[in-house]
Structures are given as structure tokens and as C-alpha cells.
């Protein structure tokens, strides 16, 4: 263990029922609906996982000129739908037979999985560790993020670097939406707005990341000696205070953008064009 102190195995009741603590049999005495937040979080995350898994493995309906689903961008295999001027880079060549989404989704997935907000959300929602404040968790042992695999949460900053690259590509995709379906520039449809909203939220979420806050300025000891970084840190800190809201908003917006492309590609309706 990282701390060098191996906890002694406990026999008998532990935690709030430990013999030294006030003798109260209840796991908790909360009278409010404390389960609502973790249940809601779990349901929301689960819905997204189901949706995104289906869409990632579908390997279809992800391109409708000029829109490419953010789940499939950049597209790194040879089996991608050809996208003119779009994010096709056949890095993986032709041996890759599965959905190309799987290649790229690892990065945003890793970014979100190790994100300090999502960690809280799923530790509480799925692991019940703890389910809510002052509500006893059901686990007998707890070592937190001190050992494998959870010690890997410390690599969050690398996923942040990748997330910046991915966000760059998605920005490029958004620029491409200002074309019509014959790839002529200077046009715009409802989808462009959807993409625009999505990319703003993606950037806001990415830049509000705690690792970003640290890299930009948090690691400094003397802000006064680095006025530019201090100002950047201030901006990132303001965003960071909304990290949870941005995490959810960008999660929803990315699914909406994908779903929008799915509907267009499946021919459910025509993209309303503004000009």
C-alpha cells in the first residue's frame, strides 16, 4: 500500500457500528431523499452507456454530408465512410474490421472515466462508495485510489492532452458543417447549430478540467510572477466551478449531435437549411 501502513483486518462490526462509536444500529439517520442524487446519476450514466455502446458498435449511419457523428471522428481506419475534406486518417490501415468508433472513443471515454467529477459520480452512483454523505457504504474494505487499478486515475492529465486533440478535430468537423451537401462553403443548416452547441460545450468541459486548471497555473507557487498564467488560471477556475454541469451538458450534447446525424443518415428527415 502506498502509505506503507497495512490496515489491520477487522473482526466484528466496523464503521459506524464499531464498538467505540455511539451505539446506533441504523446505517444512517437521514430523513431526506438522499438516494435520489446517486440513483439519478446512475440512471443518467447508464442511459448514456447503453446509447453510446449501441452507436459505437453500429458502424453505420454516422455520416451525412456535411455532418460526421462525433463518435466517429476522427475516423482512423480504412473501413470508414469516405468523408470529403473530413476527418479520415487511415492510421490503422485495412486490417481493422470493427467499428472505427471504437478506436477513437477510447480517448474521450478515458478522459471522462478518469475525470474528477465523473469519478465522484460513479463512485457514488454505481459503487455506493459512499452512496451519499453520512450514509454507510456496504463495503467491508476500502483502499480508495491507492492501488491497482484505481491508482491509474492519476493519469487523467494524459487523457486531457488527448481530449484537447479530439476537441480540435471536432472543432474542425464543426467548421465543415458550414458547407452544403455538395461541399460548397458558406452554407448552414440546423445541424450546424447542433454541432456548434456541442463543440462549445465540449471545449468548456475539456478546459474546465481539474488537470487543465493545474497545468495552466495551479501548479505555480507564485501567481504574482506569472501574470498571464494567473489570469488563465482564473478563467479556468471559473469554468471549473461548473465542471459538473458542463460534464452533463457536454455528455448530452455529444449524444444529441450523434443522434442528429443518425436521423439524417437514416433518412428520418432532411436537415433544415438556413442558407
Amino acid at each position, binding site marked *: *500500500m*502506498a*502509505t*506503507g*501502513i497495512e*490496515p*489491520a*483486518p*477487522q473482526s466484528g462490526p*466496523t*464503521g*459506524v457500528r*464499531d464498538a*467505540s*462509536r*455511539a*451505539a*446506533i444500529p441504523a446505517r*444512517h*439517520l*437521514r*430523513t*431526506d431523499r438522499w438516494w435520489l442524487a446517486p440513483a439519478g446519476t446512475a440512471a443518467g450514466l447508464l442511459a448514456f452507456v447503453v446509447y453510446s455502446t449501441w452507436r459505437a458498435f453500429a458502424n453505420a449511419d454516422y455520416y451525412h454530408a456535411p455532418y460526421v457523428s462525433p463518435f466517429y471522428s476522427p475516423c482512423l481506419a480504412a473501413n470508414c465512410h469516405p468523408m470529403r475534406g473530413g476527418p479520415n486518417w487511415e492510421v490503422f490501415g485495412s486490417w481493422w474490421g470493427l467499428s472505427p468508433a471504437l478506436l477513437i472513443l477510447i480517448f474521450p471515454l478515458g478522459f471522462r472515466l478518469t475525470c474528477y467529477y465523473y*469519478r*465522484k459520480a460513479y*463512485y*457514488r452512483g454505481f459503487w455506493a*462508495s*459512499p452512496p451519499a*454523505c*453520512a*450514509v*454507510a*457504504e456496504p*463495503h467491508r*474494505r*476500502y*483502499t*480508495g*485510489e*491507492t492501488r491497482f487499478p*484505481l*491508482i491509474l486515475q*492519476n*493519469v*487523467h*492529465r494524459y487523457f486531457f492532452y488527448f481530449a484537447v486533440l479530439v476537441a480540435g478535430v471536432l472543432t474542425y468537423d464543426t467548421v465543415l458543417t458550414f458547407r452544403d451537401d455538395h461541399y460548397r462553403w458558406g452554407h448552414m443548416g440546423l445541424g450546424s447549430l447542433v454541432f456548434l452547441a456541442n463543440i462549445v460545450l465540449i471545449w468548456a468541459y475539456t478546459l474546465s478540467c*481539474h*488537470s487543465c*486548471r*493545474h497545468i495552466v497555473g*495551479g*501548479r505555480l*507557487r*507564485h*501567481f*504574482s510572477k506569472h501574470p498571464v498564467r*494567473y489570469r488563465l488560471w482564473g478563467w479556468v477556475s471559473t469554468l*471549473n*466551478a461548473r465542471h459538473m454541469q458542463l460534464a452533463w451538458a457536454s455528455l448530452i450534447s455529444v449524444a444529441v449531435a450523434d443522434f442528429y446525424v443518425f436521423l439524417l443518415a437514416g433518412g428520418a428527415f432532411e436537415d433544415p437549411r438556413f442558407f
Partner: protein
Amino acid sequence: MSERQAEQRPGGSYPAHFRVWRGDADGGELRDYEVEVHEGEVVLDIIHRLQATQAPDLAVRWNCKAGKCGSCSAEINGRPRLMCMTRMSVFTRAETVTVTPMRTFPVLRDLVTDVSFNYTKAREIPAFVPPADLGPGEYRMRQEDVNRSQEFRKCIECFLCQNTCHVVRDHEENKDAFAGPRFLMRIAELDMHPLDAAPALGLDRRRTAQDGHGLGYCNITKCCTEVCPEHIKITDNALIPLKERAADRKYDPLVWLGNKIRRRTE
């Protein structure tokens, strides 16, 4: 319940139903009390009224009664709070208000717990190291450089964060290895202090936070921030930055490499 509500008295006072944990290390129980509540009162007022009228030996720890000293920490309807800052108006008149001691520390008597865990941990955090080359009166620090540590120094040591943190609340065995949010925040405070000279002594607060004080146990589920009566952003401003700083030291090969090269060129 409706009967009690009907029993309204002049001046906005009303009888409330309280359940207070009475007992000691050998055992105890939640005991029921009917007690008068007046307008504008807080839970601590009601506990004092119980003492003065019905339970003179009811043990409770308190001091300033203004949310500044952090003595009257307890759990009210299962939520860790300061009794002096919990107004009765947040409860409905029909509601039973349950008051128990903090459930993470050994109970002494009634609402009083043995908080020595916290004092033990406080001693294990290496103190501020004054810079060798500066005498008293020569310290120059910019406001923007002290803001972060000043936020943490708002801490009134009520120990509600220590109490609510599941790492020790639910796992007695982790108490040895884990300093708790309050004292990890203290490490962050010192590490962000613009003039702390710990590095000159070879003391790396970031590394020891992870290795000696159990930073890795924290899974940033933010209950410490939720219960903080001073509204200190413990998780976002202290614990996560400290985790990032520890990552600089221990888990970031780029930083490691950079330091290596810089040391060589120096």
C-alpha cells in the same frame, strides 16, 4: 402530529419533538423529548433548553454559538452539522428532530465524542518552515499568492469533514493511514504558501501527502465539501490540486524528465 401543530402558542413558540442520543461508550439509545421552541432559535438553543429544564446532565460541547469555533458538531437528522448554525426554521413543526453525536469518533457521553484522532493527525503534518534568509518583518507576499492558503485557513476545525469522510467513517481500520480532508487540506495550504521553505529542508510535501498521509484514499466524493460550514471548497481547491501535485511528483514521466534535465543543467 396535527395535535401538536394545533398547540400553537403566542409569540410563535411551539412544542417540538426531539430525539437525542443519550449514553456513553458502554451503550445508549435515542431518547424522546418534548421541548419548547421559540422564533429564530437554532438546534443548540433547544439542546440548552433541554439541559436547563429536563436533562441537566446532558453532555454537549459548545463554545461561541456563532459558527466561529467549531465545537458543537453533531449529526442532525443524520446530517453532520454545527448545532449553532442549524436553524429550527429548516424543519417543519411536525418533524421529529434527531440529534446524535458524530458517528466517526469514539463516543464519550451523549453528544460529546473523543476527537483526539484529529489532534493526533495534526501533529503528524510537518509544520511551516520559515525561510532561513528572511527575518520577522521582512516577509513580502502578494495577495494573489496568499489567497489560496487563506481560504484553507478559514477552517474552524469543527471536524465535520473528518466525520463525514467515508474513508474513516465506514472503515475504522483506515484511521492509521489516512489524515482526513482537514489535514490533507493543511498540507495543501503549506504547499501553496508562498514562503514555505520545506523544499530547502528536503521535505517534499506532495510526495508525503501521498506516501505518508493517505491522499490516495480520497476518492473525491466531495462529502467534506458538502458539510463544510465555512463553505471551503475542500475537494476542488485543496484535495484535487494536491492530487495533481502528487501526480507531478509520482506519476508524470514528462515532469520527472523535465526535472531531471533541469537539475543536470543547473
